[in-house]
């Protein structure tokens, strides 16, 4: 019977698990976000494999449970007497140990092995010193923004030609990027859902993360536009659509111009109130960077945009920005948060007060 159940469980799992379909369609577009980094498909495969393994175990438990309920339940009929055994015989002991072994070898060791394989890739940090193709970028999390810094033309951080951006990370496609991640005030977590990686930004220490994008932002945007352009029902799934035709209210007043986004539930209500059951629209696509660790009241909008460019495009952008930075460099500009870079704690009111009172700066 346990054997029969296991087989039944495995088969049941195969029929309900959509994974083979995902593999055939070149990726699971609905279950997971787009996979844009080199290792993102590995992560998805790991995820799906664990779904399979745990799915078999879940199906075995659930099917046995259902079977026992139906088979041994008393549903108003005269109760059948129960069998009497404690399940502590030698046979039960061996069966229990056997199950432990099956779980350990079949589930634990497999997941661990796959996990280590992917983990090795995630931790295979490139070395920008020995490999010039590696893009080295510094990431700084502060309430509630992500700041980025590139070394600029001279290849040195902390010089006047450093390229700095706020809320936007630009990287080339097909080249490895190494990010040094730090935080100013509280813990943040640098999360790129389409890359399937996150790394906490912890005040007082530098953490690292690497990734390599496989598609450019433009490709993704065009692809999504082509895939989604057309007539859409106006319901909650229309959230985030960009309309391709003007939408007017019942009185003829304009509700949405061409190119406007359906950006709130109120807009959907207004459209429906004006009799728009459908709209002609498409879905715009932006790669996003999120903060995944609760960091305060505006945590939910600590968002940055990730822009993946062709390598030549990226080089041009970096060169232009670097020149621009050199021209505009003003270390004293009080509006410029980057003047704190390297000693960010000076921007935190609590530390600022300590430094003013004691004159100490006990950070290295």
């Amino acid at each position, binding site marked *: 019977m346990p054997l029969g159940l296991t087989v039944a469980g495995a088969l049941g799992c195969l029929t309900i698990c959509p994974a083979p379909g995902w593999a055939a369609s070149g990726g699971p577009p609905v279950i*997971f976000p787009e996979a844009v980094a080199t290792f993102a498909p590995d992560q998805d495969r*790991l*995820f799906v494999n*664990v779904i399979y393994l*745990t799915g078999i175990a879940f199906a075995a*438990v659930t099917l046995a*449970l259902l079977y*026992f*309920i139906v088979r*041994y*339940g*008393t549903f108003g009929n005269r*109760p*059948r*007497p*129960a*069998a*009497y055994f*404690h*399940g502590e015989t030698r046979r*039960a002991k061996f069966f*229990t140990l056997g199950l432990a072994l099956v779980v*350990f070898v079949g*589930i*634990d060791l497999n*997941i*661990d092995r796959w*996990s*280590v394989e*992917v*983990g090795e890739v*995630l931790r295979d940090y490139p070395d920008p010193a020995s490999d010039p193709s590696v893009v080295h970028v510094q990431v700084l999390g502060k309430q509630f923004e992500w700041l980025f810094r590139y070394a600029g033309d001279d290849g040195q951080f902390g010089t006047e030609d450093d390229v700095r951006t706020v809320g936007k990370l630009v990287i080339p496609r097909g080249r490895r990027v190494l990010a040094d991640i730090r935080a100013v*005030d*509280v*813990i943040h977590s640098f*999360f790129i*859902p*389409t890359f*399937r*990686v*996150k790394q906490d930004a*912890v*005040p007082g*220490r530098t953490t*690292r993360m690497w990734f390599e994008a496989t598609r450019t932002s433009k490709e993704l945007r065009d692809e999504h536009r082509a895939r989604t352009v057309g007539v859409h029902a106006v*319901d909650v799934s229309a*959230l985030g659509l960009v309309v391709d035709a003007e939408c007017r209210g019942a009185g003829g007043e304009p509700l949405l111009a061409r190119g406007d986004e359906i*950006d*709130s*539930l109120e807009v959907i209500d207004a459209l429906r109130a004006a009799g728009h059951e459908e709209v002609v629209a498409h879905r715009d696509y932006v790669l996003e960077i*999120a903060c*995944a*660790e*609760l960091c*305060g*009241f505006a945590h*939910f*909008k600590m*968002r940055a945009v990730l822009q993946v460019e062709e390598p030549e495009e990226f080089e041009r952008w970096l060169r232009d920005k670097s020149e621009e930075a050199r021209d505009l460099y003003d270390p004293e500009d009080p509006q410029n948060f980057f003047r704190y870079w390297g000693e960010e704690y000076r921007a935190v009111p609590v530390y600022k007060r300590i430094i003013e009172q004691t004159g100490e700066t*006990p950070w290295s």
Partner: protein
Amino acid sequence: MATPTAPPPIARGSPAQADDFPGDGHGDPHAGSAHGHAPGFVRRYVFSTDHKVIAVQFLIAGLLFLMLGGLLAMAIRWQLAWPGSLVPLLGKIADDRYLTLITMHGTVMIFFAITPIVIGAFGNFVIPLAIGARDMAFPVLNMLSFWLLIPAGALLLAAMGAQGELVAGWTAYPPLSDVVGSPEAGQTCWALALIVGGVSSMMGAINYVTTVIKLRAPGMTMGRLPLTVWGVFYTSILNIYFVPVVAAALLMLVADRVGGAHFYTPYGAGDPLLYQHLFWIFGHPEVYILILPVWGVVSDLLAVFARKPAFGARYTVISMGVICALSAVVWGHHMFTSGMNATLAKTFVVLTMLVSIPSAVFFLNWLGTLWRGSLRFEPPMLHALGVVFVFALGGLTGLFNASDALDSFIHDTYFVVGHFHLTMAASVLLGGFAGILYWFPKMFGRMMNRTLSVVHFWLTFIPLNVVFCTQLLQGAQGHMRRIADPVHSYAFLKPFHGLHIMITWAAFVLGAAQILFFVNFFASIFLGRRAPKNPWRANTLEWTVPSPPPHGNFGPRLPTVHRGPFEYSAPGAADDFLPQDAPPAATATG
């Protein structure tokens, strides 16, 4: 309690304990009711040292906090489905107010709802009755344990009302929970509330462990304890080991906040990650602290309602012990993304995976108990079966989180939220209901309404699964947790907003269904059908005394235990159950 002239001999199985009961001038606290000088209302129902009264106090306090935590959850769900709209009673929820709601929801549910119900109420009510003791080993400490929960709860409510929002979540990671991120008084109140609550838990835990070890009735060996008692016993051991750790961590946080100590800021030698280590050294055992009593309750109830001995009860006990030991060495899996050393991370992956082995033994034993049984679908049984299902889901989704590689995608997403709600919320809630429904007749001497209980089960079980399984799906889409407004923030979350609305409606059904339970519970206390002594035809000692049991629990003599708690459908027995204290002659074959 008057001091006895000599310390009462309370060694296990000591007949002296039974003999000094009738109150022969020893000033025995339980002699009161037997001798007519009844204590006043306050001593009997408020500052009572009777474990059964304290259990009811814990239960009602826990249920009230459960109601508060549930209402907070409803507000959170409303905000997530229709962000920016007016929430009933609360109006428009500001971004930082939302974080207060989630912080309070987590803290209230874990420390003030689940803990009092499954540990305070079940532990207090079941342990002395089921092991054949007249009360806890330390009745006054027991009373203090409950009465410390009240200032702790008051401090927590003060934290919500005090200046500043509780923006740091129930885990309260510094520097966000420190002077850097939340300088106002609320967060200090929050930490103090947890410290006081922790002292209350410690008092209970010391009491439970001592009682189980020292006050068992004659013949009640450890091997004959019901599994519920084992569950609470293990939980108490974990509490004794790990509550001091979190208390120390929180005291250091308070020192940071009010004393300028900088344990958890990068100032000087401080380190934010120190808190995470300390918190999770406690925090991971905490999930077992909450679920061990439920595992025990489920294991016992499946046997009672399958009319069959619990399958492999000995291995269930061993597995509980193994899980307790493992729980102490897996905390790092909460910190995979914090920049942990690779070797350390790999170690924590393997150790975490090992938890699946004792867990698999539980499932084997639960299913083995049902196998060839004669299942009676009474309301407690429905909930116990529900636990088997939701805990399968919750336990197996833990394997995703156990992988450090996958964790770098799903950590801090709704996948984690779905996972720990399936284990800590769904399993513990259903297990809690199972226990309440099961022991209610013994507590109050009345039965709860069966129809209402069954309707309540289905209206709880189905929405629970819809809510938390959908959250797993959202997590797989990369949806971060603790997002106050999923509509007006990230573009990639927008196409899936319908899921939020669906979850919210399911949560509303779930919340509304609890009204049925509360009505049933409170009305049945006064209006329920009179309960017989042993309505479930169970074997354990609590069912051998009247419902509700008298002060002192047992008659002039303590029962003598002759067998384990699981002799259901024993061949040769007159009935399909055989109470633990029935003399061997009661069986036809001896």
